[in-house]
């Protein structure tokens, strides 16, 4: 859809912009009006993000602890050196990457299955499904984290008594006692909470696959699997990529669930949690800022990799030229 629908002689400036008087200045006036209307939002966005991140870059060059401000000194890139040679950073990086890969992979498959059911399900139950699937999206992450934590925890959970038939699970299984079992529960909570989002995006993608192609493939005798892999999925590649990109970025910033469930215990600290702990709990502003900047760079790198590697054209997705 074209972005500028109407610009005819009578209604050139829909609102009284700063008038220069002459009609030939119309496009100039429109430029000005455009920025007057869109500018405030743009400025606010810059102020609340670009400014803080620049400040983080600045602070990251200092040895600066809030409890001892007098000792603040310029150390150059030393903080980064400290981080990159520290095992803690790499453990957190590994944990974050693990959570990201596991959750996104599971969510993609599960979300696609949910979308397929929703597309095919009988008209009668479709509204119920749509309402149900929105509920995990609406439940706040902290609440979801508590729900899953309490379900698995020793002093309030039911999971151990329900699943004691699985080898290795007994009434005393302490899920939050080890790294992998903790990460397992964290991933479950994340998957439950965010799969609906991915499946709604995929549902929108499914709706864009031309029905005619499906029919044609059916007539030609293609099996369900062939139609899926040769017609449906290639045609919704863009939607899949966008969903993947959004979820990957989101998962990489995982914080709430980790904070609530383990608070980083048993080597379950993620990068966001590490940045939080350095800055807010330990008030190591210099080191914490450096971690924040590194986290930011990681997210940008993921984004670039996705866009270059998978050739996601976001503007094509938006239907622009």
């Amino acid at each position: 859809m074209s972005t500028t629908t109407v610009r005819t002689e009578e209604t050139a400036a829909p609102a009284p912009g700063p008038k220069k008087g002459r009609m030939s200045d119309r496009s100039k006036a429109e430029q000005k009006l455009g920025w007057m209307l869109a500018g405030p939002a743009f400025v606010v966005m810059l102020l609340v993000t670009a400014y803080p991140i620049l400040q983080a870059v600045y602070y990251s060059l200092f040895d600066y602890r809030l409890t001892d401000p007098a000792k603040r000194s310029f150390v150059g890139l030393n903080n980064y050196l400290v981080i990159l040679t520290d095992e803690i950073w790499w453990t957190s990086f590994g944990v974050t990457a693990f959570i990201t890969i596991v959750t996104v992979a599971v969510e993609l498959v599960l979300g696609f299955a949910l979308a397929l059911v929703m597309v095919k399900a009988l008209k009668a139950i479709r509204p119920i499904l749509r309402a149900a699937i929105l509920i995990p999206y609406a439940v706040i992450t902290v609440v979801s984290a508590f729900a899953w934590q309490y379900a698995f925890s020793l002093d309030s959970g039911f999971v151990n008594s329900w699943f004691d038939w699985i080898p290795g699970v007994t009434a005393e299984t302490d899920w939050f006692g080890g790294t992998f079992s903790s990460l397992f529960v964290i991933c479950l909570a994340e998957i439950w909470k965010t799969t609906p989002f991915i499946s709604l995006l995929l549902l929108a993608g499914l709706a864009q696959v031309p029905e005619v192609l499906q029919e044609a493939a059916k007539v030609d005798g293609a099996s369900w699997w062939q139609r899926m892999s040769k017609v449906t999925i290639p045609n919704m590649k863009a939607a899949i990529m966008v969903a993947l990109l959004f979820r990957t970025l989101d998962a990489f910033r995982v914080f709430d669930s980790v904070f609530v469930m383990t608070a980083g215990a048993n080597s379950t600290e993620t990068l966001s949690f590490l940045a939080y702990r350095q800055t807010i709990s330990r008030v190591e502003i210099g080191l914490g800022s450096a971690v924040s900047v590194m986290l930011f760079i990681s997210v940008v790198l993921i984004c670039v990799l996705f866009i270059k590697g998978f050739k996601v054209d976001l503007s094509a997705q938006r239907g622009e030229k």
Partner: protein
Amino acid sequence: MSTREKVLWYVAGLAIVIYALFPVGWIVSLSLKSSSDIANGQFLPTDVSWENYSQILVGDAAGLFLPALRNSFGIVLIATFISCILAMFCAYAIARLDFRGKKLILSSALAVAIFPVISIVTPLFNLWRQIGLYDTWPGLIIPYLSLTLPISIWTLSAFFREIPWEMEQAAQVDGATTWQAFRKVIVPLAAPGVFTTAIIAFFIAWNDFAYGISLTSTGAARPVPAALGLFSGASQFESPNGPIAAAAVIVTIPVVVLVLLFQRRIVAGLTNGAVKG
């Protein structure tokens, strides 16, 4: 469709409903357990008890919970309102006017949306302490705009693009003034989009945890999610699972009600913003 297929779809549908509601059912069930019942190892309480609710609403924990609830509502509503107004002007300009920098605005909105919140928290924590915004309402409202503005701009410009702007002119040809045409034709067409965007922005701000926990220190501005997160660590000796579950249910109610009332619009808004934006 054969009966067998029908049954199959009903079963698949039921599985989805259970998947979506199970953890919610569990936290509701937990909130209704009395303190002696919490460790019963079962999904359901043996006896329904309102003990946890009375504790957070009128009992010991009310001093922690009620101010947090008030903060959450106040801060989130103000942030949603401001971002809707700003995004409305911005999206109108993007959908309607031809000006340089349109793409820049849309891509910076995207860039802001992928920003790791924690990376912004660090410098804000510092700055807010210096200028006295730490632990205040504006100290949270401003950062919340970084959460709500990008998605509002994207969702709204997707909506605004689909408005047939020609109708405004048609009304003018029929004798309406510019203002009348705008108010009677465009505003009613735009209202549902603005409303949907407000709901989505509300969800996102309501969900925030990282800002809430890092930029507040007392009940003066601490929102519910942050209060819940810290409440768990309040005492090492008794586990406050029951009251937390009750508080969790209470903060979930407003969003679930919104979802049930406006599900169709929310789905349209989310997918338009992300896929068609």
